[in-house]
C-alpha cells in the first residue's frame, strides 16, 4: 500500500468515524464544542501514532494468541501518558473532557488499526497510517463539534484558550446570539442527528463522484436497412 493510498484511506475512503463508525462514544459525547472536539481529536491522534509505531515494532515478538492483551497494554500506556500530559499542561480541557480521556483506551478505532494495519506493516507505514487515521478522525470531530456549537450555542471556538493558551481567547467567534439556544444540538441526540447528516453528506459526495466518473455509455446507432 503506497503512502498516497494510506492517506486517502485514512482521510476519506476508510475514515474511522464516517465509514468504519468506530469510536462513536467519544465522538458523540464530547463534540459539543469545537475546542473539546479538537482536544480529544489530538489526544486520539497522538495515542494512535504512538500505539501504531509500538505495535509495529514488537509485532515479530508478540505471539498471535495473546496479541490483543498486548495491544491493549500498549494503548493504555500511551493513553496514560497523554492523560498525564493533559493534566499538566491543559488542565481546563482535561477537566471538561473528563472520563473521555481514559476512555480513549476503549476506542475501537485505535485497536482496530493496531490489529488491521500496524501488526502487519513496517513501522514507518504504521506511523503514517496512525497519523492519517487520527487526522481523519480529528477532522470529523471538528466538523461535528462546529455544527453542534454553531446551532446550539451560536459560537465557534468558545473556550479555545483552554487548549491553546491565553492568546486563543481571541479565536472565539460569535456568529449569532439568541436568548434561547437550541439545546438539542448540545445534548446527545443532537450529536446523533448531526452525525447522520454528515455521513449522508459523505455518501452523497461519493455518489456524485461516481456518477461523474462513470464512463458515458457508448451510443449504438442503427443503420437503416430498409428503404422508405
Amino acid at each position, binding site marked *: 500500500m503506497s503512502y498516497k493510498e494510506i492517506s486517502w484511506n485514512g482521510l476519506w475512503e476508510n475514515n474511522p468515524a464516517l465509514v468504519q463508525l468506530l469510536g462513536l462514544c467519544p465522538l458523540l459525547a464530547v463534540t459539543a464544542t469545537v475546542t473539546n472536539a479538537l482536544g480529544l481529536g489530538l489526544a486520539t491522534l497522538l495515542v494512535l501514532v504512538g500505539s501504531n509505531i509500538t505495535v509495529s515494532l514488537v509485532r515479530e515478538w508478540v505471539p498471535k494468541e495473546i496479541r490483543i492483551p498486548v495491544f491493549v497494554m500498549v494503548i493504555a500506556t500511551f493513553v496514560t501518558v497523554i492523560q498525564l500530559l493533559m493534566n499538566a499542561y491543559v488542565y481546563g480541557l482535561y477537566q471538561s473532557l473528563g472520563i473521555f480521556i481514559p476512555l480513549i483506551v476503549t476506542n475501537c478505532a485505535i485497536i482496530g488499526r493496531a490489529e488491521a494495519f500496524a501488526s502487519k506493516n513496517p513501522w514507518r507505514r504504521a506511523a503514517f497510517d496512525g497519523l492519517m487515521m487520527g487526522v481523519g478522525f480529528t477532522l470529523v470531530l471538528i466538523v461535528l463539534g462546529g455544527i453542534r456549537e454553531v446551532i446550539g450555542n451560536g459560537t465557534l471556538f468558545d473556550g479555545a484558550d483552554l487548549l491553546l493558551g491565553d492568546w486563543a481567547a481571541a479565536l472565539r467567534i460569535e456568529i449569532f446570539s439568541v436568548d*434561547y439556544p*437550541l*439545546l*438539542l444540538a448540545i*445534548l446527545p*441526540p443532537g450529536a446523533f*442527528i448531526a452525525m447522520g447528516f454528515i455521513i449522508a453528506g459523505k455518501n452523497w459526495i461519493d455518489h456524485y463522484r461516481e456518477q461523474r466518473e462513470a464512463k458515458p455509455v457508448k451510443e449504438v446507432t442503427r443503420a437503416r436497412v430498409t428503404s422508405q
Partner: protein
Amino acid sequence: MTFKLAASPHSHQRRTTQQVMRWVYMALIPGLLALIYFFGWGVIWQLGLAIITAWVAEAACMSLRGRPIGFAWRDHTALVTAILLAISIPGLAPWWLIVIGTAFAVIVVKHVYGGVGQNIFNPAMAGYVLLLISFPVQMTSWPLPQQISQFELSFLDSASVIFTGFTPAGYNLEQLRMGADGLTMATPLDSLRTALNHQLTVGEALQQPIFGDLAGLGWQWVNLAFLLGGLVLLKQRIISWHIPGGMLLGLMVPATLAWMFAPDQSVSPVMHLLSGATMLGAFFIATDPVTAATSNRGRLYFGLLIGFIVFAIRTWGGYPDAVAFAVLLANMTVPVIDKYTQPVAYGHGGRS
C-alpha cells in the same frame, strides 16, 4: 339453514389517504373550539404558522428528492402533523417555536426517513419532544384558562404576543399568566406534581383555583371535546378501538390501583384521563397508522404500553405530562410487537 353473510376479505374501503386525513382534522374541530374558548385565540395563529411551515418544508424536501410536490401536498399528512403539533404547544408560545418544531417534524422525522409511510417515529410528537427538551420554559408556559385570567386577549392581541412577545398594552407572557393573586400558575398536572412534592395531599392541592370539578379547569372540557372527536373517528372506522382503548386502559388500571391504595398521594383516574394530552394522544396521536403496530392484537399491546408509560412518567418521572415521550418509546417497540403478534394465516399453524 342460514347462510352467514360476510364481506369478502379482499373488498376494501375506497378511502384515499387524503380522505382519511380530512376526517382526522375534521374530528379535531370540537377540541380546537374548546381550546380557543378556554385558552384564547393563540392556537389559531399557531395553526397558521404550522401549516405554512409544513407546506414549505414538504415542498422543499420533495423537490430535493426529485419527487412531485403536489403529490405530497394532496395527501394532507403534513397538514395533520402540523395541526397536531400546533394544538399540542402553548397557544401564546413565540412564533419561532412552532416553526422550528414543524420544520424538524417534516424534514428530519418524516422525509429523512423516506417520506410518507416510512417514518419510524410519529413526526408531530418527535417535533414536540425536540421543542420540550430544547426550550422547556416556552413549552411549559401555558396561558391560564380565560375564566380565571385577568386579561382578555383579542385575536390581534394574541398575534402580537406570539410575534413580538408583548401585547399592544405592553404586557409580556409572564404577566399574562399571573392569576388574581399575582402569582404565575402552572398547568394543573404541573401544580399537582409540585404540591405532592411539597408533602401536600391531593385533596389540598385541588383547592387551587386552576382545578375544576373533574380535572384542570378548561382542560377537562378540552379533553372531553377531543374524546368526542375521537368517537366520531371510531364511528367512521378511521381508527379501530384497540389503540385508544388500550391506552386509556393502560393508564386507568394503574391509576385506579394507586388511587385505591393511596388516595392522598395519588391522582384520581378521572383526573388522569381528563388531564394534559390524554384524549388527544389516545385518539389522534397514538393511532397514527404509520408508526403504530399493525395487527389488532399488536395495537392493543401498543396502546397498553403507551398508557402505562404515561402513568409511570406522570407519577415517578421528571415531566408533568408524558404522552409525547410515551408515544415515541412505544414507536420504538413496534417492530418487536409486530414480530410477535403477526396473525397466523388461514391454514397455517393451529393446534394440529
